[in-house]
């Protein structure tokens, strides 16, 4: 139970915010957000300590510390603990950058907004934990449903409602497809436990646990298995906005309230990638023979990066631009996913990239939030002359832009470096994909720095200084510190990511 600490915190936080919603009339929600942040902060610190403890103990001992009925569906390995802690961190940052929004902008249900963020984060944590198809599906749904509500929180705004409806419809369809794939797999093997499935699909032998359950073995090249896996890929593709399942993403990001967008751009995406790691990389990747899903995902990965970046160049609304940018980042992470043959680099690369992505994307969005709280708009001309109105915001944007584009010395560079290292592995040899990746990194500089151009080179119509809100300001500061401090701390980061991933190999 000890190792479920982050989930318990998140659950408590969500329930607490729901209770708070009963007493919260009108103003005052900002205070709750601040409390929520501090709870998350304490949780993150505790989570990191637990993580160190778990890495120290090793997977066997960690498993023994957990009651058996939990361990059956909930993984308690260091990797899942890491992702739970990441979910806590995302939740904390989201509380922080939503502070001014729930206090001043959102008129109805401000406390519910916070509760939904907590519940969605709980979903992310549970996705990371899932060791069973059914748990996984439920957790993903928790993330998604909270997301639908979050995007529709401004319910007097048609755009917000449109976003919510679109997100809901697409999300429901994608969940259905994924569930269909899962049911195919279950129908063929008779198992939902991921460890059993790993042995049953394509490994050619069953461990004791599989034989007891009366599981059928199938070949990983069985057309029905491939269909099932591809259905899951499609379903998860919607969640992480992989091309061609990305259409909802810009519209939803644009319409949803900005803090909700900021959260949606990191939260559900992290959840989607954790699910991909668990399902595709660890379960449905036979140790010998071709990996059934690798080829399609490979092409979609190249397509995702390129389309995301190229279309982002044409955007004039910053939220839309960041939406396409987040699509592109899914593409970069997918490089590591398809490089799964690189045993000692692929998983650490994903871990590292997600850490960097959370930091830089939250940071970039916090800049957008800070300005949108005051100006009420997000088009690129609102940023004209920002470097004189608020140097803090402008220079913070430059750092985040560098990180998003993968220019050193920022966390984003480390993520990209590791991803490309995995792709150039002698066992993987995806040279062309790496070239596509770096070409995209160059394209992305254009639109990230186009915003910097408006901030620095263009004179603005308005010149009065901007007062950056406390919450958003702190969220920017924390992300900024994280983005920069990870470079000197790179060795620590590598050890951390590698040990998390290595321990997981024996799950």
């Amino acid at each position, binding site marked *: 139970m000890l190792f479920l600490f982050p989930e318990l915190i998140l659950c408590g936080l969500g329930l607490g915010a729901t209770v708070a919603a009963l007493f919260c009339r009108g103003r005052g929600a900002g205070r709750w957000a601040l409390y929520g942040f501090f709870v998350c902060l304490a949780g993150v610190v505790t989570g990191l300590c637990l993580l160190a403890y778990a890495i120290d103990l090793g997977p066997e001992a960690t498993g023994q510390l957990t009651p058996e009925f939990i361990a059956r569906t909930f993984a308690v390995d260091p990797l899942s603990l890491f992702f739970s802690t990441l979910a806590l961190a995302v939740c904390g940052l989201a509380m922080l950058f939503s502070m001014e929004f729930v206090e001043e902008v959102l008129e109805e249900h401000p406390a519910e907004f916070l509760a939904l963020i907590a519940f969605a984060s709980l979903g992310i944590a549970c996705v990371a934990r899932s060791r069973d198809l059914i748990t996984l599906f439920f957790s993903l749904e928790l993330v998604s449903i909270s997301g639908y509500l979050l995007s529709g929180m401004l319910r007097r705004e048609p755009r917000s409602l449109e976003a919510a409806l679109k997100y809901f419809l697409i999300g429901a369809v994608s969940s259905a497809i994924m569930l269909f794939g899962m049911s195919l797999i279950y129908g063929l093997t008779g198992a939902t436990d991921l460890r059993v499935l790993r042995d049953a699909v394509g490994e050619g032998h069953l461990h004791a646990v599989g034989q007891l359950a009366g599981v059928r073995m199938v070949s990983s090249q069985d057309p029905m298995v491939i269909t099932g896996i591809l259905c899951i890929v499609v379903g998860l593709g919607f969640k992480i906005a992989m091309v061609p399942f990305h259409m909802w993403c810009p519209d939803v990001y644009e319409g949803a309230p900005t803090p909700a967008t900021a959260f949606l751009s990191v939260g559900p995406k992290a959840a989607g990638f954790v699910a991909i790691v668990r399902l595709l990389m660890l379960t449905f990747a036979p140790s010998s023979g071709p990996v059934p899903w690798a080829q399609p995902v490979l092409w979609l990965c190249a397509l995702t990066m390129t389309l995301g970046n190229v279309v982002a160049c044409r955007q004039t609304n910053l939220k839309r631009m960041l939406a396409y940018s987040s699509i592109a980042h899914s593409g970069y992470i997918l490089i590591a996913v398809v490089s799964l043959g690189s045993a000692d680099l692929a998983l650490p690369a994903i871990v590292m990239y997600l850490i960097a992505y959370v930091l830089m994307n939250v940071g970039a969005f916090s800049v957008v939030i800070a300005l949108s709280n005051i100006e009420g708009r997000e088009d690129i001309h609102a940023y004209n002359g920002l470097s004189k109105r608020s140097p803090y915001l402008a220079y913070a944007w430059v750092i985040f832009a560098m990180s998003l584009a993968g220019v*050193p010395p920022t966390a984003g560079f480390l993520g990209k470096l590791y991803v490309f*290292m995995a792709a150039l592995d*002698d066992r993987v040899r995806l*040279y062309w994909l790496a070239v596509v990746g770096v070409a995209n990194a160059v394209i992305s500089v254009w639109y990230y720095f186009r915003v910097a*151009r408006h901030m620095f080179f263009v004179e603005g119509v308005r010149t009065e200084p901007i007062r950056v809100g406390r919450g958003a300001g702190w969220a920017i500061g924390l992300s900024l510190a994280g983005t920069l401090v990870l470079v000197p701390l790179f060795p620590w980061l590598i050890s951390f990511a590698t040990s998390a991933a290595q321990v997981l190999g024996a799950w």
Partner: protein
Amino acid sequence: MAEFPILSALVFLPLIGAVVVLFIPRERADAVKSASLATVAASLGLAAMAWASMGLGTAGMQLEEKASWIPQIGISYHLGVDGISMPLVFLTPLVTLLALMYSWIVEDRVKEYFVFFLILQSAMTGVFVALDMFLFYIFWEVSLVPMYFLIGVWGHKPRCEYAAIKFFLYTLAGSVLMLLALIACWWYSGPTLGQRTFDLLELAERQPTLGMSAAGLATLPMLCFWGFFIGFAIKVPCFPFHTWLPDAHVEAPTAGSVVLAGLLLKLGGYAMIRILPTLFPTQFKEAAVTVGILALISIIYGSLVAMAQPNLKKLIAYSSIGHMGFVTLGIASGTVEGIQGAVFQMFSHGLLTSALFLLAGILYERAHTYEIDRYGGLGQIVPVYCGIFVFIAMGSLGLPSMSGFVAELWVLIGTYNAGTGVGGSTALLGTPWFAYLAVGGILLAAAYLLWTVQRVLMGDLKPDWAAMKDMTRLEVACLAPLMAGTLWLGCYPGPLLAFILPSAKAISQWVI
């Protein structure tokens, strides 16, 4: 007590200075300027001390600093200088100092301006002293961002925005290719993660290209070579990757152009010498002729285009392409003299082109135009300016007794040797025609520079400029060290050439 880490101090002193400057209130512009200048002057002193403490006649790295940083993937904090990098390490604070002195006249966003220059200096010094490729790459990329802002914010509106992003994208495109090639080299430098290395000297010993061939990847070494080469060639810039340079130079503020031409271009040339022959000896030999041809095109094409320019700053920019072509040519020859000449040319060009851009800036400050045709007869009213201009132009066109002459002579000797095999070297280039044609480039340089002198300084005085003031003391002070350096190196090149020689020999041995 451990030895004083002088190279780390050189790299990080400007950065510390930048942080200090950040805390000076925005209104106290003079304090900002003085603090920045003091920082750069201090690092110039440090660089001089470092140079003085180096032994002559040693080929290997000196003043080395090595500390474990990221052992998991073989990255260390490794700095060092030798005969090739030290002149450039010294040149960096020198040119920056003069550029910042000239920038005393800047009024707009002073604090940010000086902070960007300090960061830039830090990054450039870092590139010259880094012996770990990861560190090298970080410094290499960090140098882009301050330059982007220097061009974009303080450049000539409105085209500077375009020039800034073009500069950024172009150079970044080159460096990401380099990154991929670098990772590929890293992959084949050892069997497991921890045993691989990013250390330049280690990589040279282990020859990852052999590992690539052993893994059955026959074309990968060549691809990696071109990945590195394109990354460097864009920075140099070598034809056909040069098109960012005229835009960036013309639109940048004067001090920006000075640093860009005087120092940033040298990053490319330096990296070519340091990395290409040592990591890719076989590929270098195969590609030498191609590289030589590109260099030759840069020399002749750059000079011809310079001749056709109506814009003074653009003319100087294209002349840079021509002169940097000599650097590439010297490297392509692979001979000791060629590499020696390339380093010498980089140093000399750093002095001369900085002076030329300063002169152009001084003129612009008074007349607000770069159009050569709008000037004329300035020699009558601004004699000091006229004298300095002629002096620098003579240096730039390679007049004997000026540094440019020595540098180009050495490159030509190296190229000739590499063409004929005279002097015990392998005939890497295969024909002496490279040397013959390069001489033509020198003639062209003389033609466009003399013609410019004629059009700007001689003839009838245009009435617009009748009231033009001659150079101020500050401006003369900025130019005087450059002129002195040019003359000194031209008349007495021995010490510098001797200093470069052992390291050039060591590099040359890889390919000869």
